[in-house]
């Protein structure tokens, strides 16, 4: 099938070597521009164009997935910066995953954004994001990778600006944090290329982590986990949840960025570099994972807004993936990747349910809504499936992938295992709280919203949710299906499908889940409200003050950076004024003066023009004498 597309591409381009890979990038980008060019009033035409792009990408991705091979190279002059693409087992699976989520969230977005302003820009950025993501995954050259990676940052910024045009503080925050991560990545790419002696990925293979390699590895890893939204690059995500349109949250922080970040992390740790289990680097990566799991889930626990809560979980879950990959054990890597896929499914699904709640009630603040279960049964069912999945209840998909990560953590160090289990406990507790508060209990709606107005979400929004929820179940029950795709990535002969191997770990997990339920019942009895079921943790003696600080954003790395920067900025201010003066006053006046002077010289007299020409001739004559 893929070969067919390649033939078609060759036919179109006259057999110049361009193939399907090129279209994976160009097609969404071209259609992205088209969505903005189509007149603003024709929502339908724009939406059709938008969905067509997503579907076309899916078809191409399927073709690639079947074919699983191909490469193209547009070479650029003498420098080694070629537009090079390549596809293999791993990247074809990733591209397929991206395409599937793009279609699902795309369908949802069309319904969600109906009658909203700026939807055209959203479509455009969405498709550009898709194009950039495809490019980043398929890139076969570090510079090309970097190009698309930075492009993703731009579209991210654009999407955030749509949401909060007046005061794009969140967009700035995202830009700064992502910018730092990307700068690190750039540094890493430079160091890696210096060590490998080439920019082409074929030459960057299994480098040892030593010397310059340490710098390259650490910086590239920072770039990758930063994109995935791990600590300490995470803090824009909860803020974005408040201002950005919901499909944005579902597609970018929940889906694309995780997939891309983890993809790159795996590429770095096992392809570009050679990470050995138990090595220092492995421990560093695992530590990042463990800290992310625990801290983010702690913050998630006390959130009172569905979107914020979910976005903290999006951070926390990425910790599991990083932890799994950080172990450098086959079981951990596969667990991490499997968890990534699962996470994207259930977190996407959760965000979509939050979106339908928002669409119907106008808010996602848990203090204003409860008992929606009866009004929105299908949404509730989807939520439950996804919540079970994220909490690791068997036999949903999250359970299996978490077990694999637990297994790896158990072998790598008790401290990581404990962190992972603690994370699982708190995750379960916070979802019990969320589910209980939002969907069960007595009906409670925000002021001005009548119960009869709150209906089930429209079909186009339910369809993606339903598919994702079903997927959670299918990937759990038939986990051989996804694992058979993932396992070949790290080599032959691994099989972790079926029921988890270690009975002990499963038992511990079940006990932890039961504990979480117990904890919830305890809290609920104490306060009488589902929402406050975890208050005893929130207001526990020591934790209370820490949480207070956290709520005031004392721990937000962005704010810390900003405070430092403020001091620095103050010093720089004076210098800046001076430089600014040079640019704003001196340069402008100089150029303006030069330009006005030229206008005066050009006085309309043909004699004057001839004199100028003679000056030019004299100049040429002098040059001739000089060169002779």
């Amino acid at each position: 099938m893929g070969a067919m597309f390649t033939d078609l591409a060759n036919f179109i381009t006259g057999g110049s070597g361009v193939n399907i890979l090129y279209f994976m990038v160009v097609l969404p980008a071209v259609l992205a521009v088209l969505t903005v060019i189509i007149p603003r009033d024709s929502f339908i035409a724009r939406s059709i164009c938008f969905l067509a792009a997503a579907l076309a990408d899916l078809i191409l991705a399927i073709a690639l997935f079947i074919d699983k091979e191909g490469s193209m190279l547009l070479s650029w002059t003498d420098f080694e910066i070629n537009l090079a693409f390549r596809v293999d087992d791993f990247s074809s699976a990733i591209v397929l995953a991206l395409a599937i989520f793009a279609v699902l969230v795309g369908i949802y977005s069309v319904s969600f954004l109906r009658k909203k302003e700026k939807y055209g820009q959203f479509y455009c950025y969405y498709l550009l994001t898709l194009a950039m993501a495809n490019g980043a995954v398929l890139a076969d050259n570090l510079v090309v990778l970097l190009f698309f990676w930075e492009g993703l940052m731009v579209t991210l910024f654009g999407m955030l600006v749509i949401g909060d045009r007046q005061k794009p503080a969140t967009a700035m925050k995202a830009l700064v944090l992502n910018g730092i991560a990307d700068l690190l990545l750039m540094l890493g790419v430079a160091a890696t290329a210096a060590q490998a002696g080439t920019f082409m990925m074929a030459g960057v293979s299994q480098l040892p982590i030593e010397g310059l390699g340490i710098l390259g590895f650490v910086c590239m890893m920072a770039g990758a986990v930063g994109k995935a939204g791990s600590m300490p690059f995470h803090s824009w995500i909860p803020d974005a949840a408040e201002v950005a349109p919901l499909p944005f949250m579902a597609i970018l922080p929940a889906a694309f960025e995780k997939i891309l970040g983890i993809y790159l992390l795996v590429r770095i740790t096992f392809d570009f570099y050679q990470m050995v289990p138990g090595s220092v680097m492995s421990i560093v990566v695992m530590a990042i994972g463990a800290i992310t799991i625990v801290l983010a889930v702690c913050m998630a626990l006390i959130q009172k807004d569905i979107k914020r809560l979910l976005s903290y979980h999006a951070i926390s879950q990425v910790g599991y993936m990083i932890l799994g990959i950080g172990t450098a054990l086959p079981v951990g890597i596969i667990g991490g990747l499997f968890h990534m896929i699962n996470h994207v499914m259930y977190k996407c699904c959760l965000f979509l349910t939050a979106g339908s709640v928002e669409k119907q009630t106008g808010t996602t603040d848990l203090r204003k809504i409860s008992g929606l279960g009866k009004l929105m049964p299908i949404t509730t069912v989807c939520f439950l499936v996804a919540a079970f999945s994220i909490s690791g209840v068997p036999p949903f998909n999250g359970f299996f992938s978490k077990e694999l990560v637990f297994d790896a953590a158990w072998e790598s160090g008790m401290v990581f295992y404990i962190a992972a289990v603690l994370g699982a406990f708190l995750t379960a507790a916070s979802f019990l709280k969320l589910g209980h508060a939002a969907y069960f209990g007595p009906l409670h709606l925000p002021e001005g919203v009548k119960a009869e107005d709150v209906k089930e979400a429209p079909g186009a929004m339910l369809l993606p949710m339903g598919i994702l929820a079903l997927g959670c179940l299918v990937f759990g029950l038939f986990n051989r299906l996804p694992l058979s795709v993932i396992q070949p990535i790290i080599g032959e002969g691994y099989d972790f499908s079926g029921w988890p191997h270690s009975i002990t770990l499963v038992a511990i997990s079940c006990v932890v889940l039961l504990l979480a339920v117990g904890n919830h019942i305890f809290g609920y009895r104490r306060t009488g409200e589902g929402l406050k079921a975890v208050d005893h943790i929130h207001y526990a003696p020591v934790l209370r003050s820490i949480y207070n600080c956290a709520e005031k954003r004392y721990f937000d790395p962005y704010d810390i950076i900003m405070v430092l920067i403020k001091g620095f900025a103050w010093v720089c201010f004076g210098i800046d004024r001076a430089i600014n003066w040079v640019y704003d006053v001196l340069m402008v006046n100089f150029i303006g003066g030069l330009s006005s002077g030229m206008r005066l010289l050009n006085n309309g007299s043909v004699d004057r023009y001839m004199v100028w020409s003679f000056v030019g001739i004299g100049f040429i004559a002098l040059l001739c004498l000089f060169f002779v």
Partner: protein
Amino acid sequence: MNILSIAILTAALLLIVTGLYMLVRTHNMIRIIIAVEVAMKAITLLLAYAGWLNGQTALSQAFVVTIIVMEVVVAVVAAGLAISSFRKNGDLDIRRLNKLNG
């Protein structure tokens, strides 16, 4: 030493200098056209001489004939522009043609 070549080169230079000097210093549009003609004479001279030198007399004659035709048409067009300008402005002073500047 070759007196003829030196004489021709010198004469050509002097004619071109005269033409260019006239172009810059005169204020009359028709005189400008005359100046262009003077310069073109020098070019004709040079081309004919080049043909005479390298034995391609026939070719250089073809060149010269073509140049003469071109010259006439350019002179006619220029005279037409000068006359139009005269009808519009009432004189031929090139200094009046400075509405376009900047």
